[in-house]
């Protein structure tokens, strides 16, 4: 007995991946599994909100009450069916448009002789960096009508067009705005996949006598299928679970999707019902992911397959070239240039729907507080709240990106080193779980869990730490994915040879693994920074007045109809994200000169 113990102690000490795995299991069960179980538990017990609705209810007692209310009552239609159908409708419409758009663009840039490829490619992924609801803000500036309330948009003021309701709010604008954001995901995944396909595979097809269309259908398409599958799952789950855009463009006309319905319920303190809906979203996301894994699962290797990544002869566009370039430019102007110009312009307008030059003012940027304008809110550059929110957001982004990048790498290490074991699969799976949690419900749970002191953890209600914690946990799926990918790139013999030479683990990690994973590390950091900066639904319940973030500030200005401040703060957010992108890209490029691949 003693000897077995001694053996396992020696083994544990020599296998840091085991220690790490145990650490992750403990931390993850606390931060991911327990909240999830709490969510389920809440749906099965009476909450304080229910006491006045259900006769004889005892708080905390077991009940089917919530399930009954959501799935089989008079309220089912408005609570569940309508939001569900809206979510599905939005999700699938967005996915179809975004995937077609993204794939076509990817094809255009990877496989044809389109000019100024580099420039276009950089610009076309800008929507990926900026929050999806920025386009929604710009949309409102254009298509708003006065019937629903608020100011009138450009179209009705300038051109005296009576914008119909369906074009200014609800399903159509939500789908368009989301599609113009999510196409960038398909674009990135598809360009990656198209680049790795060895052109010889297609050339072999044409030598074998296949026509161009047949090559596309029988060779290229099956090879990019895994990338298409990933794009599909990513777009469908994210567009169904997104909050910002449906909130901006849906709530004014009471167009609810599941996330906005959950938000409305949580705001009304109706936790039980809202978590039932959250579980519905979770089940839908898991279904989409597992269907994808079933269909594509075995072919996943295609994506990682090595190709020369090089195509001798791109397809010649010929006469279509100038037309396509013109279309591209129009597209970019419409989805990036015009929205940003509109946002900027609106911040200089004293009256939000007066587009004359005499109406221009710098008040909303540099003006002192005037009680008549914007409820006395001082200009953005003089506004302490904005300054604090900016600092908070940047602090959140920087801290989360550093912590997440390290965690991702360590998760990657323990997953890859234990590859093939159940432990490895478990860690990978649990680290991915937060992906399917709807942000608002997740934060509601955290709010409940951490508002009182919990074991060794002090009460974190209203603190910045709680926001940081939840952002880190919610980003684990992405950072662990990129950590695993980075670790898989490092041949295991590189660390093994170091351990044989007697180099201790910390030194191995610092001198060998970390430098070799640097590019994955940096890109993981950038990804977390961007998502942390644009996080809205996840943090909206958790911010206190002194922990406000740029996004929550934008949202609260929006509810107060202070258009100029909304757009001004949004611009600040955009500038920070784009600056961070440039800085990190520069930093990463100068240092990743040497190839990570072996041999």
């Amino acid at each position, binding site marked *: 007995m003693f000897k077995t113990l001694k053996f396992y102690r020696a083994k544990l000490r020599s296998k840091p991946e085991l220690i790490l795995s145990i650490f992750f299991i403990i931390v993850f069960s606390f931060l991911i599994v327990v909240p999830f179980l709490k969510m389920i538990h809440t749906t099965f017990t009476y909450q304080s909100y229910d006491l006045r609705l259900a006769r004889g209810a005892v708080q905390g007692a077991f009940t089917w009450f919530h399930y009954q209310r959501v799935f089989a009552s008079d309220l089912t239609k408005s609570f569940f069916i309508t939001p569900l159908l809206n979510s599905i409708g939005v999700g699938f419409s967005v996915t179809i448009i975004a995937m077609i758009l993204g794939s076509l663009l990817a094809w255009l840039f990877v496989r044809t002789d389109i000019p100024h490829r580099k420039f276009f490619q950089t610009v076309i992924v800008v929507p990926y960096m900026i929050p999806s609801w920025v386009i929604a803000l710009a949309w409102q500036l254009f298509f708003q009508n006065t019937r629903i309330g608020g100011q009138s948009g450009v179209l009705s003021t300038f051109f005296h067009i009576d914008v119909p309701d369906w074009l200014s709010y609800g399903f159509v604008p939500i789908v368009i705005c989301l599609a113009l954001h999510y196409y960038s995901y398909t674009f990135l995944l598809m360009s990656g996949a198209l680049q790795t396909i060895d052109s010889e595979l297609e050339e072999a097809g044409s030598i074998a006598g296949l026509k161009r269309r047949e090559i596309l259908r029988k060779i290229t398409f099956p090879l990019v299928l895994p990338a298409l599958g990933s794009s599909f799952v990513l777009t469908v789950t994210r567009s169904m679970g997104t909050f910002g855009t449906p909130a901006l463009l849906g709530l004014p006309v009471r167009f609810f999707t599941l996330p906005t319905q959950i938000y409305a319920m949580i705001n009304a303190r109706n936790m039980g019902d809202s978590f039932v809906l959250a579980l519905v979203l979770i089940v839908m996301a898991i279904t989409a992911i597992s269907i994808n894994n079933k269909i594509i699962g075995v072919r996943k290797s295609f994506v990682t397959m090595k190709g020369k990544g090089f195509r001798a002869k791109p397809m010649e566009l010929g006469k279509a070239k100038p037309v396509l370039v013109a279309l591209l430019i129009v597209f970019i102007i419409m989805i990036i240039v015009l929205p940003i110009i509109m946002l900027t312009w609106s911040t200089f307008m004293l009256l939000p729907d007066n587009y004359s030059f005499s109406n221009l003012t710098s008040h909303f940027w540099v003006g002192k507080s005037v009680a008549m304008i914007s409820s006395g809110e001082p200009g953005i550059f003089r506004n302490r709240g904005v300054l604090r929110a900016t600092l908070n957001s940047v602090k959140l982004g920087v801290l989360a990106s550093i912590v997440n990048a390290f965690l991702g790498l360590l998760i990657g290490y323990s997953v890859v080193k234990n590859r093939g074991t159940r432990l490895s699969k478990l860690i990978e799976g649990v680290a991915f779980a937060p992906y399917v949690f709807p942000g608002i419900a997740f934060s509601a749970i955290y709010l409940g869990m951490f508002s009182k002191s919990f074991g060794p953890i002090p009460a974190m209600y209203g603190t910045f730490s709680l926001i940081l914690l939840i952002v880190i946990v919610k980003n684990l799926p992405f950072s662990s994915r990129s950590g695993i990918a980075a670790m898989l790139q490092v041949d295991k013999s590189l660390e*093994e040879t170091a351990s044989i030479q007697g180099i201790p683990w910390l030194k191995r990690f610092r001198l060998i693994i970390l430098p070799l994973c640097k590019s994955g590390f940096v890109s993981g950091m950038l990804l977390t920074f961007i998502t942390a900066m644009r996080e809205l639904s996840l943090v909206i319940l958790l911010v206190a007045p002194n922990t406000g973030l740029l996004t929550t500030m934008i949202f609260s200005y929006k509810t107060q109809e202070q258009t100029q401040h909304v757009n001004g703060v949004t611009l600040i957010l955009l500038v920070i994200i784009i600056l961070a992108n440039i800085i990190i890209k520069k930093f990463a490029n100068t240092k990743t000169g040497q190839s990570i691949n072996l041999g």
Partner: protein
Amino acid sequence: MSKISLDNLTKKFGIVAAVDGINLDVVEGEFLTLLGPSGCGKTTTLRMIAGLEEPTSGELYSDEKVLFSKEKGVYVPPEMRNLGFMFQSYALWPHMNVTRNITLGLESKKIPSSEIKTRVNDVLNKVQLKGYEDRFPSELSGGQQQRVALARMIAAKSDIFLMDEPLSNLDAMLRIDMRSELKHLHNELGATTVYVTHDQVEALTLSDRIVVMNNGKIIQCDTPEAIYMNPQNLFVAKFVGSPPINLMKGRIIKENNNLFFKNKAIKLDLKGVVAPETESSDIIAAVRAEDIEVSPSSSENQSEAFNVYSVLPAGSETIITLQRGETELAVKLSGFSSTKMNDSISIKIRPEKISFFNPETEELIR
């Protein structure tokens, strides 16, 4: 005295035993090769010796010290085993230059920097890479990368070297060069070496002893000569030697008090050797390509002549494939041969050059 001892060492992946209870003593200073087809467990065995793979059961000793034993509660991690390991991929750290690749491990051993300097100098001289100190692995050719890996291993001055197919990524010419260098180096340093390869020529040329493995078990452990001349079973016979050993199915028969090996194509006189007592049952006769003598067939032995199926001259030797019925024989002749395709050839095999195997057990009969 044995330097490394494997006692009933087993490694299971799930229910599959990759290494199935092997016992092996590696003698101090010898060059021992683990030879076998891919998946036979040779690399797993080597990685268990290094500590990179944890055995499922069994014990492992070095210098009579326990390195691994579940019963005794001992697990010495690779960091503490003090051995050298050379990977098939060389495992050079791509972000460090040649010097740093060599010194990193030495620093961890708390060796003074002046000593490190002289060692780097020495080993780079030894592997003829003087002047390449500041190069990065990507700036070196495959052969040079290999030398760096070798230098790194030598510099640690451990007395056990483990090598996992170190030559298999090199092109044919370099491989032959490196073989002779490895052998010279082993002679010079005298480190106990365990070498893994699937290349039987490499095993024969380098080793003091060869361990032939298959399906996680040791099939035969012997000197190269014994492995080549007296394979203990069909597997070893077939695996070692190029061209592969000739195998003929047939029977032993007695005619006029003389024993013969006979099948449809061939009848061999076994005069002068003690033939196995397995008359009238199937048997497999094995003979090396260089042990067959050929001559143009004359009219009298036309009935036993073979047809020449192919002639493959390779400069120093020519391999001729002969065919008669279902029997095919490879013959190795030195230099170029005047034999033409489709010639008619008669053969002669000296009885003592023939080995017999039991077709069922595949074991050597004689």
